[in-house]
């Protein structure tokens, strides 16, 4: 779906995006994870044909995106990090206008309903809250049923229940076979949604794999358990792969004396800091 080879780009004379290489397969959710200013949005702008002054090869749907044809835009949907809506128009007027730019579009009413905006559709966007704008902006990218979706922080600024709603809609798109490029600095979202994630820092990719593999590769699965002895509560840790060697654990299990036991995996945030020396947020 997307092939990027030796991508270099900068807004200024100072090098920024450097030697980026990756491929996105059809039907997957591919995540960009990185701290603010890493270049996530910049890469999306390149992939969507907005910045044509890059060096290297960027093939999207097997075609270089330096000078995309207008049909290319019939097949991609973009949700930028900042809402782009006509403030003086209502939500419905906005959607109707954007839909009018495409050859084929979905009915608007179900779209509005899917993000809970149907009853507010005739309000001016200027009167919308941040989260409402964000949801409207999201469905705006779906009006023409694009095969390829670029979502830049689609859940930022949403309360947990609306974030859930949007995440479910993203998964629904994936179930329909769409390919999705997702940018976020929320590692929980990335872990949950993405088939693969690229860690991006200072304009280059530091790691690229499925969230599960990234976590597993660290091999740091631990079991920690607690028990009581001489009136005090004790805690011990043991590697998941060496539980058989832990005599204390064996004994506690045999005697039914365990107070608690759980395994703990490092999360993407830990992996990210380990690999890049930077925090995500």
């Amino acid at each position, binding site marked *: 779906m997307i092939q990027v080879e030796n991508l270099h780009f900068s*807004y200024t004379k100072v090098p920024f995006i450097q030697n980026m290489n990756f491929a996105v397969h059809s039907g997957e959710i591919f995540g960009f994870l990185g701290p603010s200013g890493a270049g996530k949005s910049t890469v999306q*702008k390149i992939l*969507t*044909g*907005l*910045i044509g002054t890059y060096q290297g090869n960027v093939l999207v749907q097997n075609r270089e995106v330096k000078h*995309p044809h*207008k*049909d290319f*835009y*019939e097949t*991609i949907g*973009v949700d*930028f990090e*900042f*809402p*782009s*809506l*006509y*403030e*003086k128009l209502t939500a419905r007027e906005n959607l109707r*206008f*954007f839909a*009018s*730019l*495409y*050859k084929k579009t979905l009915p608007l009413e179900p779209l509005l309903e899917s993000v809970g905006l149907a009853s507010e559709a005739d309000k001016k966007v200027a009167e919308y809250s941040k989260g409402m704008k964000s949801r409207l902006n999201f469905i705006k990218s779906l009006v023409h049923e694009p095969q390829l979706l670029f979502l830049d922080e689609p859940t930022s600024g949403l309360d947990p229940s609306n974030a859930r709603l949007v995440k479910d809609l993203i998964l629904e798109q994936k179930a329909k076979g769409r390919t999705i490029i997702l940018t976020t600095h929320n590692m929980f979202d990335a872990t949950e949604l993405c088939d693969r994630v690229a860690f991006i820092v200072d304009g280059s990719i530091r790691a690229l794999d499925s969230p599960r593999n990234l976590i597993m590769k660290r091999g740091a699965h631990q079991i920690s358990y607690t028990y009581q002895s001489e009136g005090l509560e004790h805690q011990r840790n043991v590697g998941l792969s060496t539980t058989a060697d832990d005599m204390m654990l064996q004994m506690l299990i045999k005697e039914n004396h365990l107070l608690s036991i759980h395994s703990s995996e490092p999360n993407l945030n830990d992996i990210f800091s380990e690999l890049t020396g930077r925090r995500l947020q």
Partner: protein
Amino acid sequence: MKALVQSFFMVFRQVRKDSMLIMVCFASVLAGLFFRFAIPRLETLLCTYFMKSSILEPHYRLFDLVLNLLAPYMLCFAASMVMLDEYDQNMTRYLSVTPLKKSGYIVSHLVIPAVLSTVVSMILVVAFHLTVWSFLDLVAVSIVSLLSAFSVALFIFTFSHNKLEGMAMAKLSGCILLGLPVPFFVQAELQYLFFAFPSFWIAKFSKEGHVVFFLVAFILSLAYIPPFLHKVERKIV
């Protein structure tokens, strides 16, 4: 094509919602009315008072020229205000990743309004002229007005970050009109100090009738466009 038309209507819709821009669009009509009906009366008054046979009349051509440039200038200014407004709302970027693309955005927001404004300005001259125009002269002058106004709009859009700055830029760019009176008032050699103004050459063409002056005006006004266009393209990311 469909996207272009829709996007152009959207410009229209936004102008309609902004009373300042509506005023801007009608300003050239008001100017036309004023030139046509007030100026000749003023001339009669002045002539009787100062007991001369003509005062303003030798410069009537200048009024027509101003009128011809005014409509494209005003309408392109309105278009660039709409563009700045859209830039503020991240719309320019978004529309560039729809089938409209960057090029369609510029065509629907600037080229179409500029061409329409030129038609308007030709109608205004036909309706409110003070001097006699041949059709070819009118077309020639209108083309240069069109190109100048187009580069003014590009200039305003590139060098301002919001509508407020845009208005300041518009005042600055009002100096494109400066070249017009030069051939009428400034003595021979000094005139050429204004060589960089397409409006100077077109006024000279209109007054003296040499095709060379038209060609210079045409090429010059065309030459301003590519660098500004490039900047506009770089601004939309």
